[in-house]
């Protein structure tokens, strides 16, 4: 597998996620799309760590592993963020009995 292929897959995943985030009206679907975008970014990090970072960094293993470590961090932070997001969704559902984002326009006023 080449770097290009990985980056293309990552870009496709990111685009799908972005579309879902912007276009879906169901909050759960939006959160799922956000996850897809996270994962697209993770894939990029890992791919670049594998193909780009090691050259010239052979002497230091810690430096060579930066991308992978970063991906793990992102996964952790994403889990926390999803927990927070679901909390907001629940609060929203309690207040409006709906999870439809097209109805959530309180920011306008």
């Amino acid at each position: 597998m080449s770097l290009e292929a990985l980056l293309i897959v990552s870009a496709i995943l990111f685009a799908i996620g972005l579309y879902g985030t912007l276009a879906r009206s169901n909050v759960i679907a939006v959160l799922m799309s956000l996850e897809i975008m996270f994962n697209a970014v993770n894939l990029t990090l890992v791919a670049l760590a594998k193909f780009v970072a090691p050259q010239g960094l052979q002497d230091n293993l810690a430096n060579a592993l930066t991308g992978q470590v970063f991906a793990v961090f992102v996964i952790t932070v994403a889990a926390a963020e999803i927990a927070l997001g679901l909390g907001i969704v629940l609060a929203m559902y309690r207040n409006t009995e709906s999870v439809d984002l097209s109805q959530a326009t309180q920011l306008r006023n």
Partner: protein
Amino acid sequence: MPSEAVVWSILFLPVAAFLITSLIIRPFLNRYSLLSGLLLILCLAVAFGLSLWALWAVNDADAAHRGASLEFPVHTWLDLGSAQIQMGLLLDPLTAIMLVVVTGVSLMIQIYSLGYMRHDPSFSRYFAYMALFTAAMLGLVLSVNILQLYAFWELVGLASYLLIGFWHDRPAAAAAAKKAFIVTRIGDVGFLLAIIFLFFKADEFAAAGLNALHIPDIWAAAQPALDGGSGILAGVALTWVTLGIFAGAAGKSGQFPLHTWLPDAMEGPTPVSALIHAATMVAAGVFLVGRFFPVFQQTAQTMTVVALIGGFTAFMAATMGLVMNDIKRVMAYSTISQLGYMMAALGLGAYGAALFHLFTHAFFKALLFLCAGSVNHASGTFNMRYMGGLRRQMPWTYLLMLIGGLSLVGIVPLAGFWSKDEILLSVWMERDNPAAQATFVLLIVGVLLTAFYTFRMIFMTFHGQFRGGGEQELKDAEEAQLPLPSGVSGQVHLAESPLVMLAPMAFLGFFAVVAGYLANPQWSALPLIQVPKHWITEYLGEGLTFAQPSIPSFSFGMALVSTVVALVGIGLAARLYSRKQGEAIDLVEPLERARPLHLLLTNKYYLDYLYEDLIVRRWFYQGLVAITDWVDRTLVDGFVDLLGGTFRTSGRLVTALQTGQVQFYGTFLIFGALVILVAFLIFGRGIRS
């Protein structure tokens, strides 16, 4: 010799009365509003005493300098390089006499006001305004700087406005106040232009070591230089400056064509009319021309204009006085006419005679107005058609009115005779001048008319049968479905006025009798009071630094002519208006038989229509104002609307973008980021490398 502080205190005593009344008495002690009147009377009494002292000091301080003005230091207010604006005192014979007239007449009128205004709820406001007026008038006569003079000049105008509109809930009074303010302001524009012209001449004045706004320096600048060349002010410029000053004077003194405000000003309280619109403020115009007399004398054109306007005003105002039914309006026209006499005299070089007439006129005209107030107090109206027969109930008022009237007409030996005769004589002495010939004819006819309207007034008011007063007038107006006449109280209580009103009238009456001869004895010093021959005219003449006007000596011929003319006028009035006590009520106006003329006169030569309907409404509102209105509405408003509309429309468009949906915002965010990214890829080569 009075120190500078003493002279200033003449001005600041009424200022203090004004401040105390308006800042302390009126807000906090209004229950004791009588205090305000007493305070002002006290201040004016002291100021009157100081003024007499000043007069005496200017007269006798030093036999060698008799009549010379007292020198006081000037205080620089603004220093503008070559032009220095200073303030200071000018105490020359003219000022000294004006000080005595203003404080003396004002004092008497304030005492009278205690009685006349007693039941007015705005008693202390009245005295505050009166104090302001007196202070401004004193400042006006004391000013050494033309700009300082102008400030006080406007201040008297303001006080006049406030006092004419004193009863501001009456529409007629409010309108009259506005009219007085605006019409005099038209003349003041000329005065201001003259001052501005002088200000721009400051460099030339400074080169000669003079100050362009300092009044004695202006006198000096107008004199031809010693080597025969022209002075700093000469030729056409001098003519225009003096015409500008005269325009201001004409507005203030009610000279044709700016006289229309003065009869309307009678809407104010009667003591106000007596003080401001008879004795002092309207005489300020004459004073102003007198103040700049050495300047006026250097330009024959302006002098001719002054003489002719004065003569014409004296005649025209008298004709209108013939037909008025309002007692105060008769006297208002009489005042305009008498001011015309003074102007005419000034225009023909008779400086002393004009100011002598100002002096005597202040006393007898104030007296006549106070009598009118007294009559109004009893009859509840100013309309003479509803008076009549009052001499039984008001013998003292009748006597005093007779004295004032005879003095106005000019009957020996009352004050008005001496001064009016002096004017006629001075004009006669100039008879080589065609303008003087025309003026003389107008003035002599004026004497006839004066005698006629004065005695028409006295006969209509005091003789014949009482015709019901204010009550009857209100009843008639109601029956005829007419609007109720303004200023009619409708309370008739036929009785003599209280002493507080009669005493000042008697004082003025005394001066209306003796002031003429005492101030200007024609033959020799009197045995008891050592007044030198021709005292006032010589005294005034000595005050003129640059000119020595000739003083006419008494002529029996002229006295005979003017007396005969006056007696003819009185006889005509008696023939037409005199009714025996108890004779049937007669409201037919004998002059109405000359119908077109009567109509012309009662409509005041249609000048009010000309000014208000034609000039103001037609030309000004529909012409000039229509154009500026179009510019304002179409161009100015259009531009502002366009500007506002642009932002409003664009704002409305942008508001539509604010949906409140995060996803919508996110879309824009992403597209924005994409645009930046693409731009970076295309244009960012230099940065990337």
